[in-house]
């Protein structure tokens, strides 16, 4: 077990357990924020596992998750928009924390792969993930502003 896998284990314990706790209880808005955070945690874990197992092909998992994870959160934000009636309390802090965690993982992965197409791919995954996370989180904190409007679109 190398340092990458140790980091992945620590990130799993420190990240996924609060996410499971957060999605299982509390107001609906908080649960969606926790789900959004879970996408980022698992995407970073996938990057770390790809390095830890020395399998560059495993970064495809992180790529697909970075594309589809925020889309899933936006699906929740869209179809539950009538019920997200409370501003998520820790929304901003959680998003800032996950985006801040993205940077060191991406930089370390790039440093380990060296310059080349693989490094560009890792940076691309990091940018997609951070952008998706921020957009999804902003949508969630904006959804509470017109809670009475029920959409039938």
């Amino acid at each position, binding site marked *: 077990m190398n340092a990458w896998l140790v980091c992945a284990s620590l990130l799993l314990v420190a990240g996924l357990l609060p996410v499971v706790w957060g999605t299982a209880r509390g107001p609906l808005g908080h649960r969606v924020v926790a789900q959004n955070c879970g996408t980022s945690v698992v995407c970073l874990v996938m990057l770390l596992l790809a390095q830890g197992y020395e399998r560059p*092909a*495993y970064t*495809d*998992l992180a*790529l*697909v998750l970075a*594309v*589809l994870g*925020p*889309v899933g959160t*936006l*699906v929740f934000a*869209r179809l539950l928009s009538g019920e997200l009636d409370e501003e998520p309390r820790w929304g901003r802090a959680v998003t800032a924390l996950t985006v801040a965690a993205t940077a060191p993982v991406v930089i370390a992965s790039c440093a380990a792969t060296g310059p080349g197409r693989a490094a560009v791919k890792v940076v691309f995954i990091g940018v*997609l993930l951070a*952008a*998706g996370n921020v*957009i999804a989180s*902003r*949508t969630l904190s*904006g959804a509470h502003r017109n809670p009475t409007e029920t*959409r*039938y*679109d």
Partner: protein
Amino acid sequence: MSRRLRMWILAVGALGFAALFCAACPRLPAFGGDSHPYGERAVRAALAHRTANVVAAVNFDQRAFDTLGEESILFASVLGTVVLLRQTREEREVPPAPARVPLPVRRYALLLLPVALVVGLYVVAHGQLSPGGGFQGGVVVATALHLLYIGADYRALERVRPVGVYEIGDAAGEGAYLVLGLAGLVAGSSFLANTVIGYGTFNTLASGGIVPLLNMTVGMEVACAVVVLLARFLDQAVEIEEESGR
């Protein structure tokens, strides 16, 4: 056939299966052991056909016939859903109201749509090299199209998604898999045999013989099937209402 007779036939079948299953179990390799007789043979066969991703070689070369079965299951279940979720006589179609989507979400969805499409096609095209393949990539492509629903509204999605075309694509993907299988038969070996075209160079896009071609047909089938499936669900949830006075 009476109920009693049917139960007897079921019992005979179940007993026969149980006997064969119990006879096979003792000869299975131990859990977590070092010897993997099937794995070694599968890896050898995959490398002989120059396929880097052994899972793709198992799915589309060594056991391509099983994948035909899986593909047909998806095809049949989507067909069943289409029949079940059709618009009945007591229901009417209500045009959906346009949705107000925050500008950042709209921009993000429209920017991400081409990226997600390319990622899906990349996953399909690299099925013989890295994790992924027709099924995974097809689902990503279909999800990418529905970013239009997230970023705009249902009417925008309906404009670029003629369901009829996707239904034809669904059937064409399924048919193309069969045709590729028959090509193996015509070429002189067996159904779905990987002998139609050359194996190419190991670890490049053009490798693995018919594995990438089968991946493409499956990708087309899955993408179209998921679009048709979601179209039925969206119609029911967004457009179709029961007649009042029900």
